[in-house]
């Protein structure tokens, strides 16, 4: 079995390709069910940022983007969708935190991590950039200044 596993892994890694965004419904802060597939079927670029209220680098990233978000939107029409992966323990903190910080992002709740699991995300923060339903860029982790690199990707594809 373990050799099969190894062989399988090697053959799979030779076939890397761009993937489509999975079709899952998540609730927004008003309790309405939103189809993420419908959100991504747009020629405007969407950034999905997976975060949690307890994840310090995630908050750092979303705070940093919040400072320049207006400019980004004016220049490229990009939209950031902040997908909270908080479960029952910390979910209550999402609304007051988002409003307290004055973030202008669309917020979706992935409470039992269905979307996170479907995209095979293991580490937060995790950013996925989507255009016309296709994933064009992903990034794991956040270091100060990475948002500038992210914006370069957005600008390049928004032409």
């Amino acid at each position, binding site marked *: *079995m*373990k050799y099969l*596993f190894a062989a*399988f*892994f090697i053959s*799979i*890694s030779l*076939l*890397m*390709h761009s*993937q*489509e965004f*999975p*079709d899952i419904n998540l609730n927004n802060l008003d*309790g309405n069910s939103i189809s993420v597939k419908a959100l991504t079927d747009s020629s405007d670029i969407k950034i999905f940022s997976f975060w949690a*209220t*307890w*994840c*310090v680098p995630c908050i*750092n990233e979303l*705070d940093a983007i919040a*400072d320049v978000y207006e400019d980004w939107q004016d220049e490229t029409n990009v939209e950031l969708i902040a997908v909270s992966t*908080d*479960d*029952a*323990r*910390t*979910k*209550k*903190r999402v*609304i*007051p*935190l*988002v*409003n*307290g*910080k*004055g973030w202008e992002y669309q917020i979706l709740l992935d*409470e*039992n*991590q*269905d979307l996170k*699991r*479907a*995209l*095979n*995300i*293991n*580490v937060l923060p995790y950013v996925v950039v989507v255009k016309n339903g296709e994933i064009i*860029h*992903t*990034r*794991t*982790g956040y*270091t*100060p*200044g*990475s948002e*500038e*690199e992210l914006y370069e990707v957005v600008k390049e594809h928004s032409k």
Partner: protein
Amino acid sequence: MLLTFCFTVNQMSAQLLDNLRVGLESNMAWYNDDKRTGPFFDGENNDGDEHVRVNSYLKLDYDFLENFTATVQIESYEPLALLNYSPNFEGTDFGIYSLNYRSDKLEASAGHYYEQFGSGLILRNWEDRQLGLNNALLGGRVKYMPTNFLSLTGLYGKQRVGFETADSDIFGFNTEIDISNIFKFENSSLNLGISYVGRQEKTDIEEPNFDELTNAFSGRIDFSKGNFYANAEYVTKSDDVFVINGQVINSFVNPGNALLFNTGFSKKGFGLDATFRRLENMGFFSEREKTGNVFLENNINFTPALTKQHDYLLTNIFVYQAQSQVVFADPELMEAGEIGGQIDVFYNIKKGTALGGKYGTKLAFNASYWAGLKGDYDFDNLTYDVDYFGFGEKYFSDVSLEIRKKWNKKMNSIFYYVNQYYNQRTIEDNFSGEQIKTNIIVGETFYKFGRIGQSVRLELQKLWSNTENHDWVGGTIEYNASPRLSFYVNDIYNSGTDSSTSENHYYNFGGSYNKGATRFSLNYGRQRAGLVCVGGVCRFVPEATGLSASLLMSF
């Protein structure tokens, strides 16, 4: 001809692969003998020879025929699982397999699935690889949404334990009703939820004082209007038997219940949230004998600690864990549950004000308090009688303030203060446990320089306590060479007299490389014995020294 054939095959495989999502995670450890903390030994598997361990997960999701998805997850724990994973994770096998159908009104799953009813107080199936937790159900589930205001779920399954399943049957039913949609409320929302979960498990006990079928019901209401929201949940569980160290005590049978209330108000620049929860005998396991097991196996419901989850090394030494179960360990140590709550306040001091400065200042405040249920506990006769809203012995409190300040385009700082009370005796069920009070401060600054993504981060931490055992100091230095490449060194040190940690440096250093959805990290260091906590659930990990590596990929 051949060319056409090759082209077609290529096209077909490209199309087939377009619908395939692959995720790979591999975590490796090479445990060393440590001069200070002793030679490597794995107590769970009684092994001192297998120094190299690898946990790997390969997950494939394949979408086909528009509405279908097939999922398999192969897991491998070779030659043995990482330290303190359940011994049930052994070898290589299929961990998860499922076939799912999905349309606008109907969803159906056969095989393994993850479900959650409400906040999970009655049922939650989930996976956390760091915690070694996967309690998916293996069976079938149907979700039907006949209108835009009604959703119905029915399920049956056996719970996953290691590569096997628990020896019981789980039944569940859930309804969600969107009242505001029925009556077309304009600017408020009202939702109701009702759930049932049943556990059918045979027992070897002669003349049991409990039924083989244990029933749990949950009712929920969720309201919001403008900037205000409130929600409540009540759960009852029918008579369930007390278990100590895997032994069923037939003469000690009680029902359980839980009450959760949450409310909040927020507007731009300000957020307030308050939660109250009371749990009484709410441990709920797919095998009675596994009640309270240390590997977090067989959990049917989810009762996380409702406290702030901190993200710094010294703030995570004394971590509260929800006391949902009945504990009758000793005449001096009896519990039936917990009662308490927490408050969060978020405030953004505006730009351009004296305290806000050029970029504004962000504040986050949290306070939580948890206690046992007040009442009469009789150890000899195995009975208890508790008040509904009475606060008993204090278990835990935590007050924290976080201040985030951006100084200029290059530099940001975070200041963090935490005051904790930790009742070690009741939280850890440790007879000789202390009442520990701590004050912790953390200062963190990062500074950007040079090209895009280049920065340094410095973090200093200090913990003072009321006992001679704990007096900690710690720090981290991180250098980010680019958005892809980072290096770090950290160390925490206890100059107190605590016999297990005193005068040991718990140091770690390493680096990570990210490219797209691929991440590789390498670390060397000494791990403190303690709790690894993810999402409010904690698992104990032993002290260990060694090299660890992790590879994550998805495509």
